[in-house]
């Protein structure tokens, strides 16, 4: 069973002749452990698609199943709880809580959920991302690459079903971008994580197991896994 299933997803803005079809009848699946890159030009609808997948925004029509759950059926409250348990986000602008230190940022989703922190797993993530020296620092005291690593750690902390990354390297220089991406890829293998990443950078997309191209709100290619490209 695919971990992520999208059926006839539509997102329209406006009405009548001025309707903007940000997503127009998109259907796709992502299997567990896959690292998928969604590429497209600016305004192609890739960000909208990612927001839909993570339940950050609601669709005009269609369904999104994460781990078998129809997320648009959930109330705002339930969706938020589901999101913090099952979806991890990594954004271009890091989106760390500026008033909390690195450690607090990482464990915040777990604590909000009232869950027990798996200390061993947490330490593993922190050391894997090379953040062990920085846990007491505030986000503003870190470099961009470090901040993004904190964001990745936060996304991994809840052992989510899926990690959604929106231009995770958009604000980083190319060297740091490389480092972050390699880390992301390594971790996805290490923790058997499913990752959906948005980018407009072809080179970065090449690191993924599968590339889905999106144009004018429709999927142009990459719907099925190319044979031989599976890493399993």
């Amino acid at each position: 069973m695919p971990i992520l299933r999208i059926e006839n997803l539509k997102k329209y803005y406006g009405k009548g002749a001025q309707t903007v079809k940000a997503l127009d009848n998109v259907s796709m699946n992502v299997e567990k452990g896959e690292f998928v890159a969604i590429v497209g030009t600016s305004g192609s609808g890739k960000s909208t698609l990612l927001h839909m997948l993570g339940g950050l925004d609601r669709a005009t029509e269609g369904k999104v199943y994460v781990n078998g759950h129809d997320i648009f059926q959930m109330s705002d409250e339930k969706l938020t709880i589901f999101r913090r348990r099952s979806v991890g986000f990594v954004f271009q602008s890091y989106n760390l809580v500026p008033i909390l230190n690195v450690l607090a940022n990482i464990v915040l989703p777990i604590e909000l959920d009232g869950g027990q922190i798996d200390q061993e797993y947490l330490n593993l993530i922190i050391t894997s991302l090379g953040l062990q020296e920085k846990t007491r620092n505030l986000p503003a005291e870190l470099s961009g690459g470090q901040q993004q690593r904190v964001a990745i750690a936060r996304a991994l902390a809840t052992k989510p079903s899926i990690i959604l990354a929106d231009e995770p390297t958009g604000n980083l220089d190319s060297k740091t971008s490389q480092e972050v991406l390699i880390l992301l890829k390594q971790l996805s293998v290490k923790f058997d994580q499913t990752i959906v990443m948005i980018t407009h950078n072809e080179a970065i997309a090449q690191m993924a197991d599968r590339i889905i191209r999106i144009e004018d709100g429709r999927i142009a290619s990459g719907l099925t896994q190319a044979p031989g490209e599976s890493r399993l």
Partner: protein
Amino acid sequence: MIATNNRKTVFNLAMASLRANRLRNLAAICAIVLTTLLITSIFTMALSINQSMQYAQMKTAGSDFHGGFKYLTPEEAATLRKHPSIKLYDYSLSSGRLGNTEFKHDPVEVLQIDQVYADHSFIVFTEGGLPTGENEVALNTWILDKLGVQPELGKEITLQIDIGERMISQKFTLSGYYEADKELAMAGLAFVSKAFTDKNLSDIDPVQSRDSGSYVNTSNLSVMFSNSFHIESKLNKVLADTGITAPIGINWAYSSVSLAENAVNIIPYAAVIFIIMLSGYLLIYNIFYISVVRDVKFYGLLKMIGTTPRQLRRIIAIHARLLYLIALPFGLGFGYLIGRWVTPLTTSLSGEFKGSSLSSSPWIFAGAALFSFLTVWIAAHKPGRLAADIAPVEAVKFSGVQNGGVKTLRSSNHGAKLHRMAFSNLFRSQKKLSLMLSSLFLSILLFNTIFTVISSMDVNKYLSAYIHGDYMIHNKGIIQQEGERSVNDTELSEELYGQLSHIDGVKSIDKVYYSVLTVPPDDIIRASLKSSANPQGIPARVHAQLFGLDSGWYDLAEQDVLEGEFNREQFDSGDFILVTQTLTEPGAYASYYHPGDRISYPGLKQSYEVMAVLKYDAFFAATTQMYFGNGYNAFLPAAKLRQATLESGTPADILSLTLHADPDKLDETGQLLREGIRPLDALQLKSREDYREELSDNIRIFEIIGYGLNLVIALIGLLNYINSVLTGVIARRHEFAVLESIGMTKKQLKRMLVYEGLYTVLLTALLTSTIGVLLTYWIARNIAAGMAYMEFRMMWLPFILVIPVLAVLSYLITISAYRPLARSPIVERLREME
């Protein structure tokens, strides 16, 4: 979903974000302190005034019993107190009056009482207690002072006790004493023991003494029912059930004003508290609302990470509660201090009760804390929901909160004129606009009302209400000794009048004679009461207060004539009488008599023809300024009343002398007058100047309280305005940057903002000049109508004056809000929002 243990995390998150919002916190704390402070001081005032009022009335009324039966035989008392409706009773035995010469003008009743009586009559012994031995007596400090005896237990005092038949002169030892001053009912009481009355009074037949009017050895029974409603009918029912006839007394402290029982008295306090809560709400709401809008990204981020809407609401609620807890002690403390400071001012204003007590009831703090919590809670509720409703996706990219969905944008045919842009900008957030407007409107309304009320105070009206000439000497004794305590001789005698008229500088003196008659209603009164279907039935007697006026007073007749015509010469003949309207029920006046009717009084030989009917408070300065229910005032020429009452055997006394002085010797004359009446403590001399000062004192108190309250509310209004403008500018940074990037100059931008401010002022002016005027007119008129010395005058000045002041403030606030914005480069501001 399973319940999760995440309260601590939410709390920590709330604490962290609280720390990050220092400026907001300070503003919120100030707002909460202000609100709590105001509510507390109002509570302190209301409760203190209520307490003093009730207590003062209880004290002058003498006890907190609901009522009682007077002049009973011991058997009657025994029967009555067994009645099932009586929950509690006390018992006292009339044992005569003190006969010592010191008490000639201030009669002191001698009683034998039980402990229940003492407990319920506010008699708290400083030392000792009720007498037990035959030669023991308990007295109060006022009596001891009069006798010149040190308050000390065991002190020997010789007292004469007039028991009607004879005078007992005996040495007593002091068994106990308590504090009392002359104003209090309990001052006029002395207590002897049962041993004393058994020995000295047992031979007096209460029935006989009741008939003789000395009432010695009759018993009084004060009773308490289950509640204080319909006391009179309950007392009458007890009498009817037992078949005993006895006079009843009702504790009027229960029938008159007290906050708990008279809902009308709560209304002004409730209104003020409501206004305060509203202003506080507006301010606190605005602070929270703005902080949520500013931190929209933060809350969106939290939501994206997985903070649920409920958790977000809780974060805001925790902020509100913590800030409330920090602010509370300051608000309560300062509020209580201010309340304590203001209360004496207000009580001195009403002059109704002296020695006001300050309440420190825990209810003040509980009530104020509750009301201010409600204000904070309600104010923070909506912003909390706003934070909860932020869509996480908006947090990632959007800056600002959308209110009530997308509005249809109207296309403009007028191009982008600055003032038009400003005008439509104003209506972009209608909620913010209405908050700002209502806050400004409230403070201006309050200012106008207070200003109008104070301007309506009329010195001349006040003076003419209380004094006619330059000096007035009042015989307070007559009024205080009215009824049972009356004594025949009076200190304001004809001799004194003679002496005073020879004082240098006194040009003329107008006397007022006074005699109060309780007369059975005549046919005219009966007919009048019957036709008005008086629910209480026709009373057995009505009070007619007769005043004899010297001709100096005549000028004042004209202005109060309601029916008929006042004719000086005819009036002087002595065949005519002027009568006033009667207070038939609270607030309603009607006249028994009409011009042409003839009135005769028992004891007076002559009958009088009614010349004119006057307003109920005609010749206010000349009268006792007391009015009896169903009674009326009547006026005759001074000499005629004196003569008629002399013939009847109970001559009318001089109530007051109004002195007209030589304007050049005004002060010296006053000095001499003061000297002349110094030894006579029942007399009170007041000059025109004294009254003028009294009024200006009143006005000053009005100003302190009124403008004080106003200042605070205006401050709230202004803070709200500043808050809105500042945050509006901050929230619109990106928009301004965009406008600048497409070619709007900084100057134009500034002009647009100034226009926005001026439009706000214009809208406020529009509101105040319409609804504001109506409301001010209505409120101020009602207040003015309730006060004797107010001549309602609508004031336009504040309405007009406020506008330029507001315009200048608005300009300054806008400019200072814009300045820091203008400094940062466009690109930075454009990028900041990405």
